[in-house]
């Protein structure tokens, strides 16, 4: 919920989106008698798109080889065609994503075309940056270049050095964003102990497979949906029906994917409204995020420190007030009232600070609302707890005596 709230605070200029989604649900995935082959259809569509001079093209289709052969769309003929184009084209890999670089598209020679197209089904707040086997390099270096952070910790530098034998499969968003010339520079100036633009998880302990994740900005998703173009297939030709909101594809990143809600099983609830949309829109948001600047996550230690700091500020101010007025006035300081007022003030500051962080620094402090609620609870509960203690102090001994003793001993 907090994450979704944070997502609504991000600004999007819908007229200048760097990414365009093209629906390819009308293209055949398997050969049909009398029609163009699936590979020929895709090539014709790409020819049309390439003529409009996009920056790069990504195809959100699994080109991983099957057990015996390449898919009807894939294979050396298509991969050679893609490599011959003036614009870079990246091909999705799903089935073989945990394999070595030769497994991704069946042959080592095509490894540079392969990108990971998995959308994490269990946690839609994050999108992958890479999947790797072996040492972290070149994954860490790639992330450092793209996300604008320095390898400032010894662990990062050590990982970046030991890159021998690494298979690093970049995500679709990473490969495409790297090709965008006007990527906004968002150098991460904060120390990595406070904020981090990504984190890495071990996803297959047996094969030592790791995946890097980051938080995408999903705020442009609805604009991508509104501005989706489509491929139109006839028996011998494929054309592009450009969305009327778009002037062309020049300078854009084009993502081809199945956006037909009924036809694709690849759909997930997208933040902030958790409405199910096809996976290609997740990739579009991820590319957008990496172009506009990453969302930074506050580390666990920094979050704890911030929470403790806020609590300490309130406590110190109340204590200072008590001390300050103790010898100067006969009136008792209304500690609870002061506490409540201060807490309310801090809550306002926390909310404003959380909003400011997301909006202007792209730092995700999802704890802002949580901390506010905790402070409020603490303030109210504290008052009740003190009342309870006072009551126990006054009536406790009498109650105890009544429980333990029968009657007073007679004087002998």
């Amino acid at each position, binding site marked *: 919920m907090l994450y979704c709230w944070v997502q609504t605070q991000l600004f999007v200029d819908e007229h200048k989106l760097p990414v365009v989604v093209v629906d390819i649900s009308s293209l055949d995935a398997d050969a049909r008698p009398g029609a163009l*082959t699936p*590979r*020929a259809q895709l090539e014709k569509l790409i020819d049309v798109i390439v003529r409009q001079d996009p920056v790069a093209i990504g195809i959100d289709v699994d080109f991983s*080889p099957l*057990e*015996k*052969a*390449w898919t009807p769309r894939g*294979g*050396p*003929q298509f991969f*050679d*065609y893609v490599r*011959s184009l003036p614009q870079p084209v990246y091909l999705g890999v799903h089935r073989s994503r945990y394999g070595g670089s*030769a*497994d991704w598209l*069946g*042959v*080592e*020679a*095509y490894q540079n075309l392969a990108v990971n197209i998995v959308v994490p089904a269990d946690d839609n707040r994050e999108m992958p940056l890479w999947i790797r086997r072996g040492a972290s390099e070149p994954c860490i270096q790639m992330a450092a270049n793209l996300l604008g952070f320095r390898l400032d910790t010894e662990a990062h530098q050590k990982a970046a050095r030991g890159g021998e034998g690494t298979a690093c499969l970049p995500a679709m968003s990473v490969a495409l964003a790297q090709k965008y010339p006007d990527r906004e520079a968002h150098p991460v100036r904060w120390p990595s102990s406070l904020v981090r633009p990504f984190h890495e998880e071990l996803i297959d302990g047996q094969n030592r497979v790791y995946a890097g994740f980051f938080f995408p900005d999903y705020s442009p998703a609805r604009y991508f949906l509104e501005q989706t173009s489509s491929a139109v297939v006839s028996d011998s030709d494929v054309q592009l029906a450009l969305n009327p909101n778009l002037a062309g594809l020049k300078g854009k990143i084009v993502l081809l994917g199945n956006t037909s809600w009924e036809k694709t099983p690849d759909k997930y609830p997208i933040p902030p409204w958790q409405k199910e949309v096809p996976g290609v829109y997740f990739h579009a948001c991820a590319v957008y995020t990496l172009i506009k600047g990453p969302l930074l996550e506050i580390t666990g230690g920094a979050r704890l420190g911030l929470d403790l700091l806020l609590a300490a500020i309130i406590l110190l101010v109340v204590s200072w007030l008590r001390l300050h007025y103790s010898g100067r006035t006969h009136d008792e300081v209304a500690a609870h009232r002061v506490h409540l007022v201060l807490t309310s003030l801090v809550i306002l500051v926390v909310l404003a600070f959380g909003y400011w962080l997301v909006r202007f620094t792209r730092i995700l402090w999802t704890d802002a609302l949580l901390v506010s609620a905790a402070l409020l609870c603490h303030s109210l509960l504290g008052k009740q707890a003190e009342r309870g203690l006072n009551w126990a102090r006054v009536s406790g001994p009498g109650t105890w005596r009544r429980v333990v003793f029968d009657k007073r001993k007679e004087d002998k």
Partner: protein
Amino acid sequence: MRGKLRSWTILFSLLAVMFSSLAAFAQGNREEAEDVGFISRVIGTCWLQRGDSSEQITLTRHGGAGLRAGDKVRCDKDGSLVIELRSLRTTIEASDRWTTIPRASGPRSDAMAGPVDDWFKPAGSLRKMPRSVYSPPNGGYGGAVWPARFVIRWTPHDGIQSLSMKILDESLIELWPLGNEQGVSVPNAPGEFNSDDARQALLKYRKTGRGGPLTLVVVDSKGNEQDVQFLVISEQDEDTLKSKLETCRDEPGLMRYICRAYFLRRFELYAEAAEEYETALHELAPGSADLQLHAIVAHRLTGNYARERELERRLPSGTVPPQ
């Protein structure tokens, strides 16, 4: 004296380094020229470009022909080409562009892994003294028969009118024909004897749970005798083989025959394997040197040296069959 010795040592070291570099270079070149796949089906007009020369691909001539990393292929309108790479199968569709054959990254992992891998390694085999019978297999180290498909085949020699045949079990007791010690007399000229009685005898024998070795005794009209020892595949093996052959059924073009021959050979049914290559040569690719090479090896395993020599004569000049 010591200085001279040091000079020699340095010279030898340099020579050693040079030779190992040359060896490595040669190895690199060999790998470059190594086949990474072969053509299994051709429809319409397709082209192969190797180096500066290009030629039309026909299944008749190029069926099973090896492709090297860096070769280029393409097909004209309505043409298509199926290529079995060491790692995967791919289809080349009609296009103006050439497709470069990539270097395979690893072996295949599907049911065709064995047949494809085996196609790249036509190995030689032991050559016995020339005999006339080649089914049951009589070359190499012997072989097995499939009772339901048992046929006796031989190379007819001039001057022989007839042959008498009988099959003995491992205790040299007559299995077929029963009650006829002289054996069945058959004319020499056809080179083939197809006996339902013999098949029934083998099936009956197999039901006892035994697998041989059995002996086919053949005596020609001049009194020359030759014995052929062979095994009978068990019912269990036969079931396994049938399921393996079933996987070959939908394979495209030449791959179907390559697949069948491979699995038949795995069960030592060399005569049947050679037949598969012969069928492929006859029906699909009579001019394919690669297919001829595999057929040559298969015939050598059956002991059909006459057919082996005939195929060797048809090979393009410079093509040497494995020994």
